[in-house]
């Protein structure tokens, strides 16, 4: 099939005055032209100031090593009060440890980290595999269906329900809350809707908390939060914040890597052939998929002091976006960075999980889900064919897909 991604011509992108470039505008992500904009920033203004955007003024860091340096410098670049460019009204802030600095961040992170540590993941592997098999064996053949809905969302949602020990039949609520939390409210009504839906989330989880806090500790996230000294006295809003963090963290990211991977393999038939010929490459491919997709396009920081990078003075109080999605295509560090290459050497050295004290705590879990999915797909379906273009999430933070039409032929 012909795969014609929508393109803004290079001329058009180059014609925009540098100062007017706003890479945070979701439209670049909806039409898939963001990489061309970032390519220009890396070339002409790798540390770039955007004076006007819907999020207000912000800096863009677009080169691999600069992103790593900012991410690892948690003293000069704070994660508070938020890790996206959007500043919520102060009464709508959700406290969560991804958006906290030391020492509170450290305490709370340590409370949830054990459940996604390698030792525990080994225990979960069998269950994940069983669920993956159930999902892919029930896929329709010889008819077009939406991969995002039937596979990516279903698998990540089931996984979350498992981690929280959340009632399985209600699991789509988790997807719903994840979507609500990552939408970008603009009007007062939209903020109110968000608050209402999230308070239902809190109510549900408070019920689970109350059931588990008096029972002996079990190895699920709710029980762990209810029993750990660092988290057991959390105020309700902080409980909600950390729940949302785990729901979004474990959901959108892996979901969009699952969709992206299939899309990239279809765009690169030689790579798909390589995979069929040698399933041993799957682990390496998983890292390459996560790099190539970069499910979270950036993380935002707030400068605490003046910092000079590449001659640009970032001032205390300025917002800074570390564009992982750009650093992952920086050809000065990653050879042939625009190429999707499943047996790429050093594929693990991508920016998609961030670096430093906030580096993704769920990275091994995300990788494991994607690996198992591909192992089981290959055993059953040599080809899952993409039969149309995807539609994309209207966000410059969550870099992902709403739909991807596919077909399995027999």
């Amino acid at each position, binding site marked *: 099939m012909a795969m014609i991604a929508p393109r803004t011509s290079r001329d058009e992108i180059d014609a925009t005055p540098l100062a007017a470039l706003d890479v945070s505008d979701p439209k670049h992500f909806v039409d898939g032209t963001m990489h061309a904009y970032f390519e220009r920033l890396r070339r002409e203004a790798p540390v770039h100031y955007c004076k006007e955007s819907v999020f207000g003024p912000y800096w863009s860091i677009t080169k691999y090593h600069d992103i790593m340096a900012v991410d690892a410098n948690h003293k000069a670049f704070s994660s508070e009060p938020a890790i996206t460019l959007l500043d919520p009204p102060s009464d709508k802030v959700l406290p969560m440890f991804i958006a906290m600095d030391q020492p509170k961040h450290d305490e709370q992170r340590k409370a949830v980290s054990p459940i996604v540590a*390698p030792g525990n993941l080994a225990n979960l592997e069998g269950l994940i595999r069983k669920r993956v098999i159930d999902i892919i064996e029930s896929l329709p053949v010889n008819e077009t269906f939406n991969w995002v809905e039937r596979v990516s969302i279903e698998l990540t949602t089931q996984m979350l329900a498992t981690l929280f020990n959340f009632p399985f039949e209600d699991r789509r609520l988790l997807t719903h809350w994840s979507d609500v939390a990552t939408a970008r409210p603009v009007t007062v009504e939209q903020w109110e809707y968000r608050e209402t839906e999230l308070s239902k989330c809190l109510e549900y989880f408070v019920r689970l908390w109350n059931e588990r806090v008096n029972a002996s500790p079990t190895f699920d996230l709710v029980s762990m939060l209810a029993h750990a000294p660092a988290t057991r006295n959390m105020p309700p809003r902080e409980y909600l914040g950390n729940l949302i963090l785990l729901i979004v963290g474990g959901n959108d990211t892996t979901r969009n890597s699952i969709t992206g991977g299939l899309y990239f393999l279809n765009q690169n038939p030689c790579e798909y052939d390589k995979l069929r010929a040698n399933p041993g490459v799957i682990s390496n491919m998983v890292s390459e998929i996560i790099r190539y997709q970069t499910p979270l396009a950036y993380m935002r920081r707030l400068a605490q002091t003046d910092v000079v990078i590449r001659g640009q003075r970032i001032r205390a109080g300025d917002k800074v976006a570390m564009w992982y999605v750009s650093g992952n295509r920086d050809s000065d560090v990653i050879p042939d960075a625009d190429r999707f290459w499943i047996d790429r050497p050093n594929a*693990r050295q991508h920016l998609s999980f961030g670096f*430093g004290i906030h580096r993704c705590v769920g990275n091994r879990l995300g990788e494991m889900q994607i690996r198992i999915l591909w192992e089981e797909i290959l055993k059953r379906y040599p080809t899952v064919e993409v039969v149309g273009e995807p539609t994309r999430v209207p966000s410059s933070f969550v870099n992902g897909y709403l739909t991807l039409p596919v077909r399995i032929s027999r």
Partner: protein
Amino acid sequence: MPKVYFIEFSGTKHEVSIPEGTALMRAAVGHGVPGIDGDCGGQCACATCHVLVEPEWLEQTGTKTEMETSMLDFADSTQNISRLACQIALTQAFEGMTVRMPDGQH
């Protein structure tokens, strides 16, 4: 070329000879020793090069920076003999050192 030993969590032992000045992480990755990932390329920013240093060698490895201490704090099964292998530059004085790998890098 100091010779050092890596012992996997499973017990498998690897002997590696390394040019002086090389970081212990690079030595492991470069020789394909499984159990050390080195995702950040040695920037002390990922903690996927966590090793347990045999106690008699600990002093030789020097002191940890604040960043290394923070990163190790989040690694799993950290002990007081834990180090990040990218932060140890090898010299002839390391001849014969043994380090062990934890059960996974996270």
